[in-house]
Structures are given as C-alpha cells and as structure tokens.
C-alpha cells in the first residue's frame, strides 16, 4: 500500500539560459525517528522520508538522502542551472511505501 502527502514546490516560471535558478521544495511528513518510545515502553518504529530527487527533463540534477535526524515537513532549497525549457520532476520516497511527487514547468530563453 502506498501512502502519499501534499508537497509544494517553488520554481521560477522563466529563466535565462545557463542562469542559476533557486528551487524550494517542501513536503508534508510527520517523521518518526525510530528512537522514541510510547508511554508503556514500546518502541515506535521509524517512519521517515529516505530519498528526495529532482530530475530536469529526465536527467537527475539533485539527490538527497535523509536519515532519522531529519525534521518533519522538510524544506530543501537548492540551485541548478537552467539549461533548457522543460519539466522538473520532484520525488520523495520513504518508509512503508511512502511516495510523493510534484512537477513544475520552466521556460528557458
């Protein structure tokens, strides 16, 4: 069973060719580190996002591995070069079959 959640991505709609663009991606996820216990002493299993990737016209331009220390609802801000017009695809993969995706279009002139 695959679970998902809302995501929000900020990408400039247009950019000059070969300029540096800033991308912000945030996704909703409560994150459970796997180190916490319930009041009765039972370990709460880890439930985190493991990987975040950004593909620009199907070429991976950014990847981040997350570990149990990652905060909830993680925000990632990164830059890339605006090479050509096309689609940016964002993907988040996590424990228990978690998958979230988002797309954005950019026009490069």
């Amino acid at each position, binding site marked *: 069973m695959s679970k998902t959640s809302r995501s929000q991505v900020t990408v400039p709609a247009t950019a000059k060719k070969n300029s540096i663009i800033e991308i*912000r991606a945030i996704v*909703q996820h*409560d994150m459970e580190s796997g180190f916490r216990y319930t009041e009765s002493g039972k370990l709460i299993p880890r439930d985190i996002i493991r990987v975040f990737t950004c593909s620009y016209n199907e070429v991976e331009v950014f990847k981040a591995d997350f570990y149990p220390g990652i905060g*909830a*609802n993680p925000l990632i801000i990164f830059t890339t070069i605006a090479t050509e017009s096309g689609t940016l695809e964002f993907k988040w993969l996590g424990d228990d079959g978690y998958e979230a995706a988002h797309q954005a279009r950019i026009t490069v002139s």
Partner: protein
Amino acid sequence: MTVMKLLIKHVLQFHKSSVHVVIYLRRITLCCSILLAATASMAAPQGAINSKQSSYELMTAENKAMQDDPSLNPAMFWVAEGESLWQTKSGPKNIACTSCHGDAKKSMRGIATQLPKMINGKLQTLEGQINQCRSAQQGAPVLPYESKELLALTAYVAIQSKGMPIAVKETPANQGQLKKGQQWFQERMGQLNLSCAQCHEDRAGLKLGGSLIPQGHPNAYPIYRLEWQTLGSVQRRLRNCMSGVRAQQFEYGSPEMAQLELFLMWRARGMPLEAPGVRP
C-alpha cells in the same frame, strides 16, 4: 512553653493598579496552627500592557520568513487540507461545511478575530464552534482536539481573517466570562505558584532561561511550532504553560480554557491576526 512566631509577608504588585496580596503565617507550638489568608481584590478589567507586541518580533529573520512566505510555511499544508475538508460531506445528512456556509473566503472572513464569543448562551472558541456545527448541524462525530482534521479546519477558517485586527470586545453577554478569564490570568497556579501575569505582564521583555519572555498574545494561532514539529492550537500551548508551572492543566474544550482564551483575545484586541503562524 515557648511560642514560636513565624511571620511571612508577601506583597504582590500588579501592573498600574495597586492590588496587594498579603499573607500572614503564624505558628504556635502545642496548640493548633492558625493560618490566615487575606483575600485579593481584583481591580476592574485593566488594559493590556501599554504597547502590544507580537512574539513575531522576537523571532529570527529565518523564522519570520518562514511565517511570511506561503511557499515556506508548513502550516499551509493544513490549510490545504482544511480547504478540502470544507467540501467533504459528513454525517447522516451528507452535508459539508460549504453546504451551509458556501465559500469560506466570504462567509468565514473576520470570524477568527471575533472568537471566542457567546453563541446561544455558551462561550465558544473556534474549535468548539467547528465541533458544534459538526455535531448539531451535520450530525457527524466531533473532531478530537489536536487531531489533523480539527487543526486543518481551524487553520483554514483562521487564515480567512489573516491581517485583520482582533475584534473581541467586552459585551454585557460575555462580561462574566471575561472576568473569569482575567482571574485565571492573574491567579497563581501550580506547584511553582506562578500566574500568567507574573511572566507575561510584569516580566515581558525580560528573560527566562535565555529566552525572551513574550507578552503571550494568541494572535497567530494555530501555529506551526518548531518545537512540536507540527501545527497546534492555542489550547495546546496554554496546557504547556500550565505544565510548566506544574499546575493541573485545563482540559481541552473546557469552560476554563474558553474563558482564558476569551481574556487573552480581548487583551490582544487590535493586533492583526497572523494565523497561521510559525513559532520556535
């Protein structure tokens, strides 16, 4: 037969008006001890501190940016969820919020700045009124406090009043409740025997353990608190404070909570609503 006398005198000075609370303790050996407690007289509802300051001003630039920018504010996820729940049918009558209230942008505008208020003889907070509508109008089960659904709807309704000044006024209808709320604010509570006013009125702007003490206005709720790593209500925050002074916490949705919330909103009147806010 020796007589031991112990005299302890406490003098409390409240802001502006001179209200004195004096406690004498006297102990006599071999006989029973006599404890005398003088009563405290409350002044008429006093104004808030001279200039109201939102705890937004105490945040770092990064946190302020997180609150101001919808693309960075995690609370917007709950607002999106709330927008979806607003349309979701529920209960045996199969109706949604929108069935009666239509477009929330119009019908809910200004609502969050007026609550808590007396509705049909009962003091209702925003969460309380949402649940009242769910049970009485939709016939749907009430949403538990701090549940994702209730927080989402609260955030969605609150954001419709973003930027508007808090408009809770003293009226003949809420006067009694407002007075009670003020008492909760000014009375000492808990093992640490502290009142809200002692920190948030008398010592606002000073430090407690390295952190600046805010005036404690509820003008940004519901907030995404970084400490909680999630969205939370004003009642959750008030319970935190009560736990901090080791007091018996008010129950979620209780009349005491509503009275305290009413007083706090009245105290913050005129301040713009920042909901949904981000706080450290």
